[in-house]
């Protein structure tokens, strides 16, 4: 398969994937740092490079409402947003997932207000982790592009029919230029395939209702059905990844395990900071320290069994969160990692660090600090500070 090597931003890569998929409808509203995706995509629309019906909404709430309407009508639908935009979509997110609408949305991760901050952290995506959407997280422009293409297949799978959010780090990835590879247009088109509508509103021969009132008599069964569908998602994500490998020669799993097999200590971290951490892990490995890394890709549904099994042999694990869950508790990634290790009685000692909020740089020295501490914890079995903020003024 012919790949085209390019140097592009994460946003440019996502917009390119959306052009290749050529969805039927998109409704969007601009917000930094996601604006650039739809700005590029609307150029594709204006230049006739896609046949998408583009709806420029007056708010993100309306944008997601438009996506829901178009998806229920029977179209392939996508949009993009960040931060406050996602927050404003809040009630609509649940309507999209509860109505089992396979909408794909790029989420360019950005901090939440107040105070106002346009830079990257994971507060937005983490705030929406329990809204019934599937979440795929991406380290770099290549993964954001690859995940966007795979998201359509996962969302539209007949055993799933759920919306998918593809997360990438604001500015750090969205606005940085990197080398990556584009897949050939026809290969993407064939991979995604023709859209199959399920119970479309526009099929007037077979009228259906969306958004009915369901009282205590059946609401719980409906929710249980959603939970059961979520349980099927990991298997389908893996099947789609296998097919994707055939067109892209790149492997994807539910998570990336980096130098974990023979590791004694490990870092768990999402998105772009994983890349920086991998370089630091290599330098520790050269000194004979057996460190490894786990980077979740499918964050919702969270593959508890698989991740627990991958980490259970380690002596100590540090989970680094780019978002905090306020209220005296731990970061959201830590909470899930702890849950995944709960069944393993002799599992690793855990610690949690909060880093990079509001775009604060995550530097190699931060990964070094975490790994040096893990070496100590592995020796003594003792954790000094279970949860701490790093890279922060005292």
């Amino acid at each position: 398969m012919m790949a085209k090597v390019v140097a592009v931003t994460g946003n440019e890569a996502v917009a390119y994937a959306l052009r290749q998929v050529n969805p039927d409808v998109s409704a969007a509203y601009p917000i930094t740092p996601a604006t650039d995706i739809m700005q590029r995509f609307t150029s594709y629309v204006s230049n006739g490079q896609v046949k998408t019906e583009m709806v420029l909404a007056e708010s993100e709430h309306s944008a997601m409402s438009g996506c829901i309407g178009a998806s229920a009508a029977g179209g392939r639908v996508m949009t993009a947003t960040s931060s406050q935009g996602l927050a404003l979509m809040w009630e609509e997110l649940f309507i999209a997932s509860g109505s089992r609408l396979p909408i794909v949305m790029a989420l360019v991760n950005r901090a939440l207000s107040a105070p106002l901050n346009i830079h990257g952290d994971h507060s937005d995506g983490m705030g929406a982790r329990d809204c019934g959407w599937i979440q795929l997280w991406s380290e770099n422009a290549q993964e954001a592009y690859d995940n966007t293409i795979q998201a359509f297949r996962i969302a539209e799978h007949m055993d799933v029919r759920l919306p998918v959010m593809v997360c990438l780090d604001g500015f750090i990835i969205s606005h940085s230029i990197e080398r990556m590879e584009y897949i050939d247009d026809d290969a993407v088109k064939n991979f995604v395939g023709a859209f199959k509508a399920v119970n479309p509103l526009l099929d007037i021969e077979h009228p259906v209702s969306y958004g009915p009132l369901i009282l205590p008599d059946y609401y719980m069964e409906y929710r249980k059905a959603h939970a059961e569908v979520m349980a099927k998602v990991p298997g389908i994500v893996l099947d789609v990844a296998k097919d994707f490998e055939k067109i892209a020669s790149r492997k994807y799993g539910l998570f990336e395990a980096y130098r974990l097999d023979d590791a004694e200590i490990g870092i768990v971290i999402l998105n772009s900071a994983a890349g920086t951490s991998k370089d630091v892990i290599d330098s520790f490995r050269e000194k004979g320290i057996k460190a490894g890394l786990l980077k979740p890709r499918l964050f919702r549904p969270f593959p508890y069994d698989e991740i627990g099994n991958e980490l259970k042999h380690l002596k100590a694990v540090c989970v680094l969160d780019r978002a905090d869950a306020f209220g005296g508790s731990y970061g959201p990634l830590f909470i899930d990692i702890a849950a995944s290790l709960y069944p393993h009685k002799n599992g690793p000692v855990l610690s949690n660090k909060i880093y990079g909020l509001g775009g604060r740089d995550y530097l190699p020295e931060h990964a070094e600090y975490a790994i040096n501490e893990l070496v100590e914890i592995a020796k003594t079995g003792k954790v000094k500070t279970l949860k701490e903020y790093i890279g922060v003024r005292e």
Partner: protein
Amino acid sequence: MADMIEIRWHGRGGQGTVTAAKVLADACLSSGRHVQAFPEYGPERAGAPLRAYNRISSKELRMHCPVLNPQIVSIVDATLLDSINVADGATKDAIFVVNTAKEPKEIRAKLKAEPAQKVFTIDATKIAIDCIGRALPNAPMLGAICKATNIVTLENLLEDVRKSFGKKFSQKIIDGNLEAARRGYGEVKEG
């Protein structure tokens, strides 16, 4: 040079510094390497100091953070020499390329460059005014960096200047920028 080359750009908003970093990344890509180009985003105002970065490597680039120890420092606006420490964290053998009409020796003293560090100067603003009629020094800076560091051939660089500027500008501006890059390459001075 090393497996990975890290570059830090110092400029002011409106001088085309970010575009220069992008063009350089593209030019290095065409020789089969991995590249990154990214600015430090702050309030974007014309005249405000800004930094941009490049990484160029034969291996996959996974590091996603600012460049702290640049091997190449490009100073697009010499007035920044008075207000910030552009040599901060630069490697012992770093190459500095400075847009100034002054002699390299004078700039070397001002930078307090270490013995193994190299200092190059180029009057990029004057070249830009000659060639394109505007004080946009990025194309001659790219030419000068190309000559001072050998990280990319002049042919590859010119091809990418043509491609990048071709998307936005008229043939006259493109030709002006190509000439400016060539002159930057030819007129850069070491000291």
